[in-house]
């Protein structure tokens, strides 16, 4: 009897839960990203540099989505998934976002030749992905990680960066 009630409740919850098809993907320039950082006050921006063709990047996207949904003690925090797919691959990115039901911000970088803008993201970045940039203090503090994360190491790393320079 009880399991039947539970099943009905689950079905009801499913029916009333808002349909979340995933974020709308837009293109962004580095200038626009920088202005978001500058207006960020005490927000910690977690900027993941990824691409749909990069397997280890795709593998860690769920951890960034989890972080976006439940920042917990790391708030105020903003996750931005910056895709390095070419703007002509926008549809691929949008399909990926819908399939994975990603609700965090996803943008496709619209800049020219990478060798001209890689240093603007961070001078310590070689251009290898996956890479994650943590931006704090309205753009004044940046730390770049050229590595993969797990759900746990992503959170502990952000916590460490926040504690290093409170």
């Amino acid at each position, binding site marked *: 009897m009880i399991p039947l009630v539970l099943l009905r409740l689950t079905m009801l919850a499913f029916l009333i839960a808002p349909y979340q098809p995933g974020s709308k993907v837009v293109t962004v320039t580095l200038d626009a990203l920088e202005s978001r950082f500058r207006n960020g006050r005490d927000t910690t921006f977690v900027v993941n540099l990824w691409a749909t063709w*990069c397997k280890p990047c795709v593998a860690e996207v769920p951890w960034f989505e989890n972080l976006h949904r439940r920042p917990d003690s790391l708030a105020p925090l903003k996750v931005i998934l910056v895709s390095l797919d070419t703007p002509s691959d926008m549809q691929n990115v949008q399909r990926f976002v819908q399939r994975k039901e990603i609700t965090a911000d996803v943008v496709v970088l619209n800049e020219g*030749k990478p060798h001209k803008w890689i240093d603007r993201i*961070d001078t310590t970045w*070689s251009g*290898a992905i996956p890479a994650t940039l943590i931006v704090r203090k309205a753009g004044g503090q940046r730390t770049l990680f*050229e590595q*993969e994360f797990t759900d746990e190491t992503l959170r502990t790393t952000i916590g460490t960066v926040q504690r290093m320079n409170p």
Partner: protein
Amino acid sequence: MMIRILVAALVTMMCIGTSTASDLPDGVTVGDVAPNFSLTGVDGKAYALASLKDMKGAIIVFTCNHCPYSVKYEDRIIALHEKYLPQGFPVIAINPNDTTIVPEDGYSKMIERAAEKGFAFPYLVDPTQQTAKAYGARRTPHVFVISKVKSKYIVQYIGSIDDEPNDPAGVEQKFVEGAVDNLLAGKTPEPSFTKAIGCTIKWTKP
């Protein structure tokens, strides 16, 4: 107090096995002596800088099987070897990835890929990753052009092959060709350092 917090934070970072990009091995910069190596190729033979004998230099490419950007550049790497081997600058390809992380980059898969594509250049495996660390390779593909100055090999160019990985037709600057052409003409490469998008090297986890 501030320093103590900082040290504590760094220790925490080390414990959780994470480090910032600036903590990755620096490797060489342009003008440094090229680190020597002795690595096995897909033909089973060992290769070292001494194997270059009568060559003027080499185009060392850290690359691998699996990385989509390495794949995009395969034909251009083959073309570089065809063009510059006769002029004394052969390609030497080195795969630095931990193959337990990416089985596709394993030695037997390298042999298969080299045969499929008809690599005429050595395709070497760097199982300890010491060569990648000594050079400071950070991504695949990542190129180091070296040339012989007196009796030593000197690093002359570090960076990407050209400025357009996705579409060979959209290339505006062929960085490696420019660097080697300059060296052949007795000039210094300009630019001597570029960055590019690529795959992270799959470092063995400590």
